[in-house]
């Protein structure tokens, strides 16, 4: 199974060296990958139907709990088949749709990558693994949406989609890690076992919030829905793939997958019902005002996603079964409608529904596909959509309290609008009189009309013979969500009951709406008046505000002046050290441990203090340099007093060298300018003094600590015995720590080379600016 998931990644890599051979007719070969995978997954249907679930385990980073754990159950299988099945058709379709496109290889590489990531999402059992694939879908969909990268709008939409889904993914990661941390395992199967603990935990609400935002951003739920219509900038095969079966369903999948872990409580149910309800109504209402075919489909997709979230929120066995059915229904008819739209766009050059009519005369097979898909989306009897819609109503009716009325009402209104949108997209372009300018259109290559036709026919076939899919696919999928066996065959005919009545009302009103209302630019203009209130607009202004804030913040903190950074670092260090120092108890100095003070020492310290004062305050550079060297010699004397002859010698040599170098090199520099004003100088003095004081206090504190002399003793005892040297400091440097000294020499050599080359470098006239 690992190979099946990774195959897409491997193939997408192969496109880098071999992609350029995949032009023209050979492009069809690209679809071997999804077709092969579809066959592979289809072979699992009998096993899954018998209630089995196939697990795969391969350790990856066991210490972090990240493993290649895959689990194929009913839900995963349904999604895998959709991903690879619709994927196969999209691959084939694109071979004709993008024929001769210069970046066809790139297109297939992105698509393979995306498909593999999607498969990973729906098969992963380890939540961290799931998250990795989840992010991969965001990233690869970024490339797909921005495929027309020479178009600024396209790039912007891709960025918005990535921003929204990526932001949600970030929160999702937090939620998943929290879940894994609390339940002690990152495996979903094991989390199901401890779900009571998770649901009772104080952080349960937070987990839900994080997971919901992750799912909502991905599945384009209100108020994060706005990236989806923007993503329509992608070539139509991509829209068909992303928005019918894959990308946007990932959020729905996540909710369905986590239902057995987190679901079933009020905290789960109400947010999902409310957000799903708002989304389905909002999307459906907006879809009827659009005139762009893809815009209509985009908003009706948002609405359909809302319905799915809504159903998962209700969380009864019926509603979950309805969700499983609706996932399949929607994928079939929406993919068919998108692909049909693609052909219309490709052949006529417009997607404006007000301009299109009568295309059945020139694009007959496509007209059938469009009609069947529209019927399925409208939920006419004997279509799969009918069963889906029935189940939705049944699910809303079988809830508790006053909910049935409200929820069913919502569902009915939504479905009326959706029906209208479906007819608009699938029927309107083909009905009526054919305008003169389109009469020369010819039917395109079969690869372009056969896939939508196949999908639409499947939608009818499943509707007429629901037994084709119920026991094999849909019941296992619902079983996986509820975590208990479901065996409820789908029926075409439920008898005369409320559900049928509601279906009738929906149909009648929807068709009436279609007949009464004609799409027009006027309607579009009316709805766009509300744009300033839309979440897209609000979030865009929020983004701008954050941007402005970031610029201001950067200008304040990162203003490019080295000493300002330094000042802040020092102030912070002083505060931190002082806090630790004073909270650690009183600072004291034990007088009897101190060594006596002689007149020489006092004299040297006095000289040093005077030299420091001179070095700091002098306005002459030469005086400052000489004062610095006096400080060095003073240190020398201190080393001599306190038993460090080697140090004294080194310091003496080095100091002399430094002064010589200073004077030689910097001889001709101008005298110091006093560049700072009084206030700055006082401020710097305060900060510097505070730092000095803190260091001094730390020094005093450390003096009180006993010194551990085992290492010193080792060197002292062994200097002659092991290394035959009597000066212990020298023995340490050249023998015990000989390598350190060697590298020190290397460092010095590098510095010497640097000095030498800087001195030797002659500037060209042009560089002397």
């Amino acid at each position, binding site marked *: 199974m690992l190979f099946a998931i990774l195959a897409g990644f491997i193939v997408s890599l192969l496109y880098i060296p071999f992609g350029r051979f995949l032009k023209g007719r050979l492009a069809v070969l690209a679809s071997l990958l999804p077709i092969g995978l579809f066959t592979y997954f289809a072979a699992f249907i009998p096993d899954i139907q018998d209630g089995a679930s196939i697990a795969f385990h391969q350790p990856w980073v066991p210490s972090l709990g990240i493993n290649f754990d895959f689990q194929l159950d009913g839900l995963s299988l349904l999604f895998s088949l959709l991903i690879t099945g619709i994927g196969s058709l999209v691959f084939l379709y694109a071979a004709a749709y993008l024929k001769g496109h210069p970046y066809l290889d790139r297109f297939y590489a992105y698509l393979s990558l995306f498909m593999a990531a999607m498969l990973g999402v729906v098969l992963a059992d380890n939540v961290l693994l799931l998250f990795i694939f989840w992010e991969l879908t965001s990233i690869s969909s970024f490339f797909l949406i921005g495929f027309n990268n020479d178009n600024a709008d396209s790039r912007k939409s891709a960025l918005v989609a990535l921003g929204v889904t990526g932001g949600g993914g970030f929160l999702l990661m937090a939620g998943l890690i929290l879940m894994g941390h609390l339940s002690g395992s990152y495996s979903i199967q094991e989390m199901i076992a401890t779900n009571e603990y998770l649901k009772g935990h104080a952080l349960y609400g937070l987990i839900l919030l994080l997971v919901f935002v992750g799912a909502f951003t991905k599945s384009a739920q209100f108020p994060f829905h706005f990236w989806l219509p923007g993503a329509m900038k992608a070539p139509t095969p991509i829209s068909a793939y992303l928005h019918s079966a894959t990308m946007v369903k990932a959020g729905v999948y996540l909710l369905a997958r986590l239902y057995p872990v987190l679901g079933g409580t009020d905290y789960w149910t109400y947010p999902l019902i409310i957000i799903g309800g708002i989304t389905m109504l909002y999307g459906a209402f907006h879809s009827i005002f659009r005139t762009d075919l893809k815009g209509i489909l985009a908003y009706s997709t948002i609405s359909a996603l809302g319905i799915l979230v809504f159903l998962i929120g209700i969380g009864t066995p019926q509603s979950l079964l309805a969700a499983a059915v609706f996932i399949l229904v929607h994928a079939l008819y929406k993919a068919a409608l998108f692909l049909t739209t693609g052909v219309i766009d490709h052949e006529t050059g417009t997607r404006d529904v007000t301009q299109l009519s009568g295309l059945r005369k020139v694009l007959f097979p496509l007209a059938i596909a469009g009609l069947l898909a529209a019927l399925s989306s409208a939920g006419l009897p004997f279509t799969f959509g009918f069963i889906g819609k029935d189940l939705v109503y049944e699910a809303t009716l079988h809830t508790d309290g006053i909910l049935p009325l409200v929820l069913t009402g919502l569902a009915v209104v939504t479905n009326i609008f959706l029906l209208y949108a479906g007819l608009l997209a699938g029927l309107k372009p083909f009905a009526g009189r054919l305008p003169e300018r389109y009469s020369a259109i010819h039917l395109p290559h079969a690869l372009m009309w056969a896939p939508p036709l196949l999908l639409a026919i499947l939608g009818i076939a499943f509707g007429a013979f629901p037994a084709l899919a119920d026991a094999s696919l849909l019941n296992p999928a619902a079983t996986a969500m509820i975590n208990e066996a479901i065996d409820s065959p789908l029926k075409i005919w439920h008898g005369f009951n409320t559900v049928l009545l509601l279906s009738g009302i929906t149909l009648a009103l929807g068709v009436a709406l279609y007949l009464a209302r004609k799409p027009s630019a006027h309607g579009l203009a009316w709805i766009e008046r509300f744009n300033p209130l839309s979440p897209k607009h609000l979030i865009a202004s929020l983004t701008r505000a954050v941007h402005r804030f970031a610029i201001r913040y950067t200008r304040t903190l990162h203003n490019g002046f080295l000493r300002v950074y330094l000042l802040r670092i020092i102030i912070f260090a002083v505060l931190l050290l002082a806090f630790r120092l004073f909270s650690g108890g009183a600072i004291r100095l034990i007088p009897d441990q101190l060594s006596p003070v002689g007149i020489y020492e006092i004299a040297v310290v006095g000289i040093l203090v005077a030299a420091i004062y001179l070095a700091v305050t002098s306005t002459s550079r030469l005086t400052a340099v000489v004062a610095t060297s006096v400080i060095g010699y003073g240190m020398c004397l201190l080393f001599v007093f306190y038993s*460090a002859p080697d140090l004294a010698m080194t310091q003496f040599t080095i100091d002399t060298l*430094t002064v010589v170098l200073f004077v030689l090199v910097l001889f001709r520099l101008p005298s110091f300018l006093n560049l700072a004003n009084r206030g700055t100088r006082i401020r710097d003095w305060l900060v510097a003094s505070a730092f000095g004081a803190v260091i001094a206090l730390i020094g005093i504190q450390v003096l009180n600590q006993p010194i551990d002399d085992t290492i010193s003793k080792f060197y002292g005892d062994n200097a002659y015995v092991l290394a035959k040297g*009597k000066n212990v400091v020298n023995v340490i440097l050249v023998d015990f720590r000989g390598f350190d000294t060697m590298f020190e020499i290397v460092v010095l050599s590098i510095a010497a080379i640097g000095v030498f080359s800087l001195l030797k470098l002659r500037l060209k006239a042009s560089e002397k600016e």
Partner: protein
Amino acid sequence: MELLLVILIGILYAAGIFMLLRRSMVKLLIGLTLLGNGANLLIFLLGGITKGKPPVIDSAAKLFTDIYADPIPQALILTAIVISFGLQAFAIVLLKRVYVLINSDDLDDLNTPEEEDI
């Protein structure tokens, strides 16, 4: 004596930091030197100071017979002195180079205006 040295270290650090905060590059270098001296002295002091007993074994003996100053801080400081010389030498020459190029000792003249707005 320790108290005197602690005060001296504090002064060295304070002076070093103050000089680091100046705009002149030469002052910055001097600040670096002061700071280095302060740090060396701090290590020296914290290792414990012993008067008149260098860590050198008597020429007639094979082992120490008397107490002796801790050799480890000395070895560390010796390394530090040498390395800081390398740093200073390079910095001095670099400073000279900068001065030749921009004819200024002012750090702010090195700032290039960043690209405004994205």
